[in-house]
C-alpha cells in the first residue's frame, strides 16, 4: 500500500503529469468554494442572531475576519512545508506550489487585518491597537511580502524559488518566537488585551457553524486559485519542454 501511494505521489511530482490533473481539479474546488460560501454567508446574514454578547450587528464581520485569519496562518505553514520539501528533496513541483501559495496567503492576511480594523472601530473605538495578535498578524504580512519580493527580485526562476523557499523555512521557525515575544511585549506594556473567552461561552452554535463553513469555503477557494496559479507557473517554467510547446501549438 505504502509503495503504491509513493508511486502515485512521485507520478504527480512531475509538472507534466500534474498539469492536466490540476486542470481537472480546479472546477470541483471552485464550485465547492462557491456553494460553501453562499451557505456560510446565508447563515451569517440570516440565521445567526443579530447580537453577540455586547456587540450589535456589526459583529457579523466575524464570518470573514476569523476564517481569513485562520487561513493566513495555515497557508504560511503549508507554504513553508512545501518549501522545505523542495529544499530537501529537490522537487520542482513543490517549489512551484510554495510560490503559488504566497499571494493568496498575503491576501488573506491583508483581509484579516482590514476587516479587523473595521471591526475594531465600533467595538474598541479604534481602527488599530497594538494588541499581540494584531501585531503578529502584521508581521506575518511583512513575511509574506518579503517572500514575494525576494522571488520577484531574482531573474533566474530556479534560484528565485530556492532562495525564497529558504526564507520561508527560516520565517516559519521564527513565527512562534515572534508570536510569543510580541505577546510578552504586550503584557509588559499592559496594553489593550481582548479576551474572547466570555464571548465564546455565549456564542450561538449557528455562529460557530457559519465560521467553520466559511473557513472551509476559503480553503476550497485557496486550493482552486493555487492550482490555477501553479498551472500558469508550470507553463512559464517548462516552456522549453516539448510537451508544453505541443500543448500550446495544439491550443492555438
Amino acid at each position, binding site marked *: 500500500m505504502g509503495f503504491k501511494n509513493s508511486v502515485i505521489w512521485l507520478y504527480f511530482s512531475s509538472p507534466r503529469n500534474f498539469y492536466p490533473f490540476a486542470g481537472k481539479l480546479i472546477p470541483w474546488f471552485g464550485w465547492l468554494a462557491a456553494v460553501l460560501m453562499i451557505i456560510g454567508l446565508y447563515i451569517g446574514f440570516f440565521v445567526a442572531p443579530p447580537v453577540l454578547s455586547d456587540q450589535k450587528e456589526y459583529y457579523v464581520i466575524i464570518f470573514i475576519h476569523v476564517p481569513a485569519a485562520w487561513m493566513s496562518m495555515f497557508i504560511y505553514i503549508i507554504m513553508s512545508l512545501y518549501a522545505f520539501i523542495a*529544499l530537501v528533496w529537490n522537487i520542482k513541483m513543490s517549489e512551484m506550489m510554495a510560490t503559488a501559495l504566497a499571494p493568496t496567503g498575503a491576501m488573506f492576511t491583508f483581509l484579516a487585518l482590514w476587516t479587523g480594523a473595521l471591526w475594531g472601530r465600533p467595538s474598541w473605538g479604534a481602527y488599530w491597537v497594538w494588541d499581540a495578535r494584531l501585531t503578529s498578524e502584521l*508581521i506575518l504580512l*511583512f*513575511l509574506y*511580502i*518579503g517572500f514575494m*519580493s*525576494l522571488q520577484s*527580485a*531574482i531573474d533566474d526562476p*530556479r*534560484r528565485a524559488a*530556492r*532562495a525564497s523557499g*529558504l*526564507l520561508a523555512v*527560516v*520565517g516559519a*521557525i*521564527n513565527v512562534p*518566537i*515572534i508570536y510569543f*515575544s*510580541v505577546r*510578552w*511585549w504586550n503584557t*509588559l506594556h499592559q496594553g489593550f488585551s481582548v479576551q474572547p473567552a466570555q464571548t465564546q461561552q455565549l456564542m450561538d452554535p449557528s455562529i460557530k457553524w457559519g465560521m467553520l463553513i466559511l473557513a472551509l469555503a476559503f480553503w476550497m477557494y485557496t486550493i482552486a486559485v493555487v492550482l490555477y496559479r501553479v498551472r500558469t507557473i508550470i507553463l512559464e517554467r517548462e516552456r522549453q519542454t516539448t510537451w508544453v510547446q505541443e500543448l500550446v501549438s495544439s491550443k492555438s
Partner: protein
Amino acid sequence: MSESSLLLASRSMLVRDLTLAMRRKADVLTTLFFFLIVVSLFPLGVGPQMEMLRGIAPGVIWVAALLASMLSLGRLFSDDYQDGTLEQILLEPHPLSVLVLSKVLAHWLLSGLPLVIFSPLLAMQLGLDGEAIVLLLITLMLGTPALSLIGAVGAALTLGLRGGGVLISLLVLPLYIPILIFGAGAVESQNAGLGAQAHLSILGAFLMLTLVFAPISTATALRISMD
C-alpha cells in the same frame, strides 16, 4: 582534514576580513556615524523634554543599532562575490558554515562592537542613569551578534541582486523583532521593578540559537545564490 587546519582557515578568514576593513576605515566609521546621527535625530523630532527622552531612550538606541547593523550587511559578502573570492571560499575543503561564522564575527567586530562601545555616550545624552546604561550595554552586547548572524542569512539570499540593499531590510527586519523586543524591554522592565534577568536570559538564548542555526542557513543560502 585535521581539526587544526579548520581552525587555521577560520582564523585566517577573520584576520583577512579585519585587515581589509582596516585598509578602508571609512566603511567602519560610516556605520558608526549613521548610528550616532539617527539617535541624535530623535530629540530633534520629538522634543527636548528629558522625561520623555529617558522613556524612549532604550527603544531609540536599539532601533538605531538595528538599522545601522542592517545597513552594513550589504558589504558582508558582496565584495567577495564581485571579485570572485566567494567562489574560492565555496570550494574550500572546510565546512562553509564555519567559514561563514568567521566572516560574521568580523562583521560584528567592525559594525556591532563600535555601536556597543558608543552606546553609553548616547544613553547619557538621552538622560539614562548609570544602572540603566550598564544594562543597555549588556543587552546590546548580547543582541548585536545575533543581529549580525540573522542578517547574514538575508545578505546571502540577496547576493548580487539589483536593489539588494532595500530588499534585505524587508527580509531581515521582521526577523529582528524578537531581539528588539527583549533588548529594549530589559531597561524598561528594570525600571518597572521587575528585574531584567528574564530578558537577558532570553537574549542569551536567542544568541545561542542563532549561533547554531544562522551559519548553516547562511551557508545554504550562499550555495543557492552561487549555483
